């Protein structure tokens, strides 16, 4: 096939082999120049295709279920304006981040990367972090400024996430958490590999104390990719299984709520999705699991853009691996961002897997979610309090262990509308529901291959930069902002990272950090004909 979706048959008119559904913008994955892009459907799958004048055609799978892709458009919530914008519209999306006044959504979640250094050197790391001598760590003053920018933009902010690098090795990380808690930010999430949590119980206890602060919470976002030794070695470079277990037990001891975060890569750990959920349901500290198809930004193993994992693929694998527990329509797209970016389900559980009375019940089976979250058909909804509750639950700011999420679960339970029959008041009976509720998130981040500005423009997960910008997470990782910020902060030149994709083998070379960058030679020029 050429870049035009045509099949060659001279003399006879032929139909294209695909349905053209969107014209949009993306970037060239090699030189990061903004380019026109088109979204097409073939065999019930969604592909994004684009052409760079210099580097030729590129195509990638973006959604594994075209019917769902089209259907989910109804669940697109009107965006909310942030209180402030940090930049101006100048060159157009995705070059003006951010947030520029053309951005369609406020920040549900702000991320502060406190360092580039890490106590691991994972083969897969979108932040390209590790034991590196030339990175940076933010200062207390920079952290204050970043938090202030977030609060100026959000007023009362829901969640800030401290990330890195590895945030727990920053000497001032507890101070940073205190700074966040002193501001109108309800929850702090700590995104960690768990090494310090496994060994430093005083540190875990200090986090536990901060989790007990009134109207504030601290939750742990723990990297957790599976159980096979191979999974650990190929994704993390080390067998961390014992460390993860100890980290989790220490969190349980300190009363901390944990989300297991699994990066899923084809051919590596896609068979462990059901096991991760089952383990999470069994562990007292774990209240949610987040699955992320490996983001092909930064450092990663070589991949094929045409067969990469997408949200519907992850959900399908989970359903195949635990057919007694799940069906694909238990997951619902998240309306605050673009609905194809993220899908969520909540479960009510009873007991633990393996116990005789164990039960698991996906909440979308209990009520007609689309009667509340279909923003296109519904001009009236049966109950606006229920819509609001569902909006908070199906949101990028929803994290188990936060008061807001648990309150909304209670309101959603009240939506069940079966008060006081047979002597059972269900909402009352559900007052302790939150101890049994469990959340599963599936989030496919954009990479330089799959980037679609339509999604970026409504992104609600923002990287907060030391110079006071809020940059959509996927723009930060794919467009070159991460490299720009690292260069500014460290004073060391950083080249734009290029995906380690099979079709780009000929045009990339190794960066000092283990990622790939454009090779500095004329061979990098594409012929503009075949599709990469």
């Amino acid at each position, binding site marked *: 096939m050429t870049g035009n979706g045509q099949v060659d048959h001279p003399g006879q008119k032929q139909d294209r082999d695909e349905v053209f559904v969107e014209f949009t913008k993306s970037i060239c994955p090699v030189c990061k120049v903004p380019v026109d892009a088109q979204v097409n459907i073939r065999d019930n799958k969604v592909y994004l295709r684009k052409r760079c004048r210099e580097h030729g055609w590129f195509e990638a799978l973006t959604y594994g279920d075209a019917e769902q892709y089209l259907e989910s458009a109804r669940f697109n919530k009107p965006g909310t304006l942030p209180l402030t914008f940090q930049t101006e519209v100048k060159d157009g999306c995705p070059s003006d981040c951010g947030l520029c006044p053309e951005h369609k959504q406020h920040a549900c979640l702000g991320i502060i990367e406190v360092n580039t250094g890490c106590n691991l050197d994972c083969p897969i790391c979108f932040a390209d972090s590790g034991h590196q001598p030339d990175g940076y760590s933010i200062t207390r003053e920079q952290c204050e400024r970043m938090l202030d920018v977030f609060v100026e933009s959000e007023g009362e902010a829901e969640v800030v996430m401290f990330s890195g690098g590895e945030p727990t090795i920053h000497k001032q990380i507890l101070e940073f958490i205190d700074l966040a808690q002193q501001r109108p930010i309800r929850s702090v999430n700590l995104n960690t590999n768990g090494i310090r949590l496994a060994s430093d119980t005083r540190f875990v206890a200090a986090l536990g104390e901060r989790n007990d602060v009134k109207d504030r919470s601290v939750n742990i976002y723990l990297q957790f990719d599976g159980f096979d030794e191979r999974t650990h070695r190929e994704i993390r470079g080390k067998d961390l299984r014992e460390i993860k277990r100890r980290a989790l037990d220490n969190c349980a001891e300190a009363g901390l709520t944990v989300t297991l975060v699994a990066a899923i890569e084809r051919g590596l750990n896609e068979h462990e999705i059901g096991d991760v959920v089952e383990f999470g349901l069994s562990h007292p500290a774990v209240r949610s699991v987040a699955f992320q198809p490996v983001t092909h930004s930064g450092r990663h193993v070589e991949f094929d853009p045409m067969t990469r994992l997408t949200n519907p693929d992850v959900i399908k694998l989970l359903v195949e691996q635990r057919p007694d527990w799940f069906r694909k329509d238990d997951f619902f797209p998240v309306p605050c961002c673009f609905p194809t970016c993220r899908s969520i389900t909540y479960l009510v559980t*009873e007991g633990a897997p393996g116990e005789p009375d164990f039960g698991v019940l*996906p909440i979308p089976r*209990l*009520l007609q979610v689309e009667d509340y979250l279909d923003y296109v*058909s519904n001009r009236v909804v049966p109950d606006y309090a229920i819509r609001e509750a569902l909006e908070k639950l199906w949101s990028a700011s929803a994290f188990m262990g936060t008061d807001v999420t648990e309150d909304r679960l209670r309101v959603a339970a009240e939506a*069940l*509308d079966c008060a006081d*029959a047979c002597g059972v008041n*269900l909402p009352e*009976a559900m007052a302790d529901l939150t101890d049994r509720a469990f959340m599963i998130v599936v989030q496919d981040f954009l990479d330089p291959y799959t980037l679609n500005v339509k999604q970026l423009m409504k992104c609600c997960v923002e990287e907060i930069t030391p110079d006071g910008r809020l940059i959509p997470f996927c723009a930060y990782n794919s467009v070159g902002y991460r490299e720009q910020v690292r260069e500014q902060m460290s004073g060391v030149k950083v080249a734009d990272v290029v995906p380690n994709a099979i079709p780009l083998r000929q045009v990339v070379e190794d960066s000092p950090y283990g990622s790939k960058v454009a090779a500095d030679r004329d061979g990098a020029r594409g012929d503009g004909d075949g599709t990469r």
Partner: protein
Amino acid sequence: MTSADEAKACCAASYGNDAVALVLGESYHPGGLALTRRLADRLQLRSGQSVVDVAAGPGATARLLATEYDVTVDGVDLGESTVTTARQTTMEAGLSERVRFHSGDAERIPLPSSRFDAVVCECAFCTFPDKATAAAEFARVLRPGGKVGITDVTITDAGLPDELRTLAAWVACIADAKPLTEYSRILGDAGFVVTRTEQHDDAIARMVEQIDARVRLLRMTAGKRLADAGVDVDAVLRYCTLAKQAIDDGLIGYALLIAERR
């Protein structure tokens, strides 16, 4: 009270009390808002028309029709407390001018004759013991050329097999459901011409799934109290499985029906 009266009173009260209402709530009907909109579209409702909603429940459909189709709606329901709730919610929504509720019986609709453009009746016709009289009442309140739109449970022409009799006893709306041809005949006898029928079996399959899920939830959250109240959860779940099978086998379905008054 005759047994028919008892059945009716029980059903109206039960939208809040019997097994289905217990777990689904009184505003529930299969197909949700989407099927209500489809029904309204098939009735070709136009701005300014007047509509009767028979068995209006707490009034979600009446308010949707008034808001999205710009019609006035008179809702009728047998349950006093349901009517009170419906009025209250409608007042809070600022729709009391265009949406009114009346306490009354489908077999004696408390509204004047030959006045209305359309009658809607969602998941309720099947529960009326005297369907012929109810159909005659629909005809009476409609102007000539007015239309009735019904969504309802259907069963096969052969009726329900024996193993579903217990199910029928448990679920009010299945107990007296009829084949679609029978609904059409009853409406025909009352002076209607059926202009359209559609099958929406997914809607009732989804309803059974919701019952199943909610009963399981009740068992998780209030198992002991359910048992104390004499609810046999395992039996309810067995009925759900039977009902799902019956739907898959085409023995129970859900239909949309439009008929025009001659």
